[in-house]
């Protein structure tokens, strides 16, 4: 199992502290080769739209962890926009929502969307992260 790693993971979150902690877990547990981070939905959507112009498979993440509550473009809007274009990447991209919201409205809404694999409530556990990264490896 350890010989195969997730090539590229993507985190979309505006919380610097959270990002640093996740980075640390990923590094110490060696969960993936590379990691890209965006501070809000708009930044990441711009990235994916640019990728569509020039498909470079190394730059397409296998897994996306997205927060819901972010400035400029929140998680919901990103998910909606991303769902429209994700089939054009010719690669399975697994989308997880990772949010501190325990509001049942948010959770139900996320679970009702096919494009979302699962809803993780912060704080995420180290072994939780291991499980989802291994599933995509």
């Amino acid at each position, binding site marked *: 199992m350890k010989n195969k790693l997730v090539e590229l993971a993507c985190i979309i979150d505006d919380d610097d502290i*959270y990002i640093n*902690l996740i980075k640390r877990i990923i590094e110490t547990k060696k969960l993936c080769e590379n990691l890209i981070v965006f501070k809000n939905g708009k930044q990441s959507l711009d990235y994916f739209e640019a990728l569509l112009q020039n498909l470079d498979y190394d730059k397409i993440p296998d897994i996306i962890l997205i927060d819901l*509550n972010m400035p*400029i473009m929140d998680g919901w809007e990103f998910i909606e926009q991303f769902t429209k274009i994700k089939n054009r990447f010719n690669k399975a991209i697994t989308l997880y929502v990772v949010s501190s919201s*325990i509001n049942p409205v948010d959770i139900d809404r996320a679970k009702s969307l096919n494009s979302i694999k699962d809803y993780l409530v*912060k*704080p995420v556990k*180290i072994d939780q992260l291991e499980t989802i990264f291994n599933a995509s490896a």
Partner: protein
Amino acid sequence: MLCLGHKRINIHLSSTMVQVKVPPIPIDSNIGYVELKNNDIYFSKALLSHIGKSAKNKQITLDYFINTLIHKDDSNQFRNNYYSYIKNNLPFRQSMLILCKKGKYKEFVCTTNQNNINLNNTTSKFLFFNKRKLKTNKRINKHKFYYKETAEMTSAGSWYVDFVKRRSFWDQQARRILEYPEDYKPSINNAALYYPKEEFQRARRLFYKCSIGKPFDTEIKMLTKNNREFWVRAKGKPVFNDQKEIIGIRGVFQDIDVTKSKELSLQRTSNIIASQNKRLFNFAYIVSHNLRSHTSNLSLIVELMNAAKSNEEKLELMSSIEDITSSLNDTIEHLNEVVTIQTSANENRSPVTFSESLEHVKTSIGQIISKHRTTILSDFSEVDAIDYIPAYLESILLNLITNAIKYKHPQRDPIIKIGSYVENSRTVLEITDNGIGIDLEKFGGKLFGMYNTFHYNKDAVGIGLFITKNQVEALNGHIDVFSEVEKFTTFKITF
């Protein structure tokens, strides 16, 4: 007592007989009247003969007259009129049914003054009873009875404005509801007396439109003679003659003060509940998203610390804890602000001048203003002060000014125009900047939401406008925003 040689009739209210010397009174013996003097009540012969009693009949006391001879539908009103006349000298005019010969009721009009009689020389008080000349037949009487009952039970008065005779008519119930005396003659020229100031223009418009053919059905506040405001439902319709010309307006109004007041207070309560509920939602939102994100980071750190292999690693993690606690503090402060809006909204308002508040704000953020070369132009000449919570006004100005500076246009120095004026009899404060503006179609719905930021701006927190909106609304005002991207943003606060 002597009445021009006619026989004297004494009817005693008290058991003691009071013999009074009375000056001659020039009253026609054919007129039915009652003289009231020193607690005694004297019936004229004409009146006695109408009711089939003789002068010797001494059982006619006031109680007997009111309770037995006057029809029960009229007796209460008569009793009230009678005592206000005796005690307070309030004249009145009332029509009533009185039991006459052979057990039949006949209609009389009772008045306190008779123009053709000079009563200046007497110390007595008189009530005159004139028989209704027009005999209303039974059928009409019956209808009238039902109409009266209906009007009374529904507290509905009716009125008519006659354009031809240039006169206005109110029915008995209308006068009673508006607390005018029985003989009051309404006039369209006095219409301003019948409505509170703020409603009069609307009433006038409704009447005018009705006079050119448009009926109305509305709820409006009216004013009684004693200056009591109350709600009525008013309906009016034009009256046409055979030539299809409008010759008047007829209408009814119903006293709905009790239900309307309940409705209004229910509406107020519901508004309060709605806004408190909104704040509660915001509270829950902050707790769910923001407090939780800090605590979840803390939990994550603890987990990492437990997994850490070296002390250096642990020490590194310690520094993150510092960051988290400071963000946690900020969030709790925000939570506190949201709660404070709720509690201080109950504080007393006091007169605040706009220019003074603005000066305070300018002093407190003088550095920011000069650092960004900000020009603030203000004009409070139209309205210079309002009754408000001073701290709120300053907070509102502070938030909107710093907002304008924060989102200034990169190519120009910020110019902020602040002005006040009156619109629909409410004070309005307007703040316009020349900043980057905001796409309202995209973000309008979220602009005043908590922790919603829309620009790539490092110090955007998303709390200022949220607090401002809540402060304004806590004091029953509202805030609107107009903007054009790259050009300007205007915040309009209606107090």
